[in-house]
């Protein structure tokens, strides 16, 4: 089958190169030095920053995206709100990379339009210590595709909450909080957690956005791997690059596995 040949050649083969490369020194002998080399504070730091940004934007995006999706689906708003929200979210969640970075530079960069506007009314965020080119700025940028993705994925799950459940809860004397704590949230939790993990991976693997925004200044794993490719790594061995890439793969594989498990769990009640 051409399909499997294709996959084997362009997905499995390069991945196996990564795995093999991670356990080889520059002379081609077997070694654990590369994996152990990941303990280097410089690399660990990059992982830590990447994970922190991804966690932060995943949780933030999940909360905001959920509230928005719930408002659009069950908030008692006219139905056009929902359809347009889904369209906008579809576009926004696909708008990433270089153009997204440019959009935020034009908005909240040092000479961005919103920065200028706020400066004109005496509230220049850069005077207050804000900078777009930091972890916080980058998080703000990532949020642009994170919360729409959450809203897109979680909306069908919210749809699956049957009105009867709420009525049943009310008939049994339960109030607003009882319903949420004992019915809606337990049912939605797997979907919410699963999607949050998906958002985590989404931010964790992002390269182009971060690179275009900070020019590689920030210490993220993806940017460090890019440095490796560029050969701009000082005294680091090539094996270490393999190991960093493998580390990313492992983290991504764990998140996707978690996502799949949780989504299977959520199908028990929804759909």
């Amino acid at each position, binding site marked *: 089958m051409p399909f499997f040949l294709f996959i084997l050649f362009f997905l499995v083969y*390069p991945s196996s190169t990564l795995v093999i490369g991670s356990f080889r020194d520059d002379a081609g002998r077997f070694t654990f030095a590369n994996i152990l080399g990941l303990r280097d504070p410089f690399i660990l730091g990059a992982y830590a920053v990447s994970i922190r940004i991804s966690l932060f934007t995943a949780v933030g995006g999940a909360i905001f995206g959920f509230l928005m999706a719930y408002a659009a689906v069950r908030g008692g708003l006219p139905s056009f709100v929902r359809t347009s929200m889904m369209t906008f979210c*579809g576009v926004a969640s696909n708008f990433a990379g270089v153009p997204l970075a440019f959009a935020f530079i034009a908005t909240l960069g040092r000479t961005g339009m919103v920065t200028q506007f706020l400066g004109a009314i005496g509230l220049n965020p850069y005077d207050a210590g804000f900078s777009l080119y930091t972890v916080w700025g980058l998080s703000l940028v990532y949020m642009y595709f994170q919360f729409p993705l959450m809203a897109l994925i979680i909306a069908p799950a919210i749809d699956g909450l049957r009105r009867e459940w709420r009525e049943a809860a009310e008939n049994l004397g339960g109030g607003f909080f009882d319903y949420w704590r004992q019915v809606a949230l337990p049912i939605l939790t797997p979907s919410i957690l699963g999607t949050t993990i998906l958002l985590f991976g989404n931010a964790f693997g992002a390269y182009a956005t971060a690179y275009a925004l900070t020019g590689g200044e920030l210490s993220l794993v993806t940017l460090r*791997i890019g440095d490796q490719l560029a050969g701009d790594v000082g005294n680091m061995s090539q094996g270490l690059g393999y190991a960093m890439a493998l580390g990313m793969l492992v983290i991504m594989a764990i998140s996707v596995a978690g996502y799949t498990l949780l989504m299977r769990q959520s199908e028990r009640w929804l759909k």
Partner: protein
Amino acid sequence: MRRGTLWSWLWIGLGVIYFFVPLAATFWFSLQAKLNVLSFQSYVNVLKDPDFAKNFSASVLWAVSAIIVGVLIFVPTAYWVRLRLPRVRPAVEFVTLLPFVVPAIVFVYGLVRTFSRPPLMIINSPLLLVFGYTIMSMPYMYRAVDTGLRAIDVPVLTEAAQSLGAGWPTVMLRVVLPNIRVAVLGGSFLTFAIVMGEYTLATWLVKPAFGPYMYELGQSRAYEPSACAIISFALTWAAMGIMQFVGRGAPGGVQVAAGH
């Protein structure tokens, strides 16, 4: 107005602000290329730049090639799995989701390290980029095709065509493909949107493309990058819009009458 409704509007309103403020600001910014007067000068500069035409058309070529390769590989596979190998479906579905596990930078790292040394020195071939994009778009393309196939009765259609004397090419081209064209178009536009502004693969495989061009522009110019961001956003918007417009014809809705 009920309190709940008020809250709903609040969250929707915040979402709208987050969505539109950067766009509006970017657009406004892109109009400032001439001192003290609003103009479309930055757009003119970009569109007149011969490098823009070169890189942009290169990206279109990559996108279209990736779509063609994707259709050629994924449609027969999904069809064959549905018709003859339903048992391997979970495995194939798992494989099609693998690109989600591999971030673009890790993927390109693997490609560069693998194909820039013997036995396979194909790093300089544009085919590598096209195949890379095909892999990247696989989760979307394969799923779209598979969903399209779910809506039609594959075995019945195949038998009907074969009993009328059709060979495999005829079955694929004149029976299967037309029946899932909406799904295929949906996957294609999504692929197009993904490839057009893509930066990571293109830059490390050193090919002309719109993404790296935009990045370079960002290093040297002030207002043109915003113009590019707006152009790129319009492209995403157009691809998504066409996708929804095409999808309105309820995928498979027509076919139900024939099968069931």
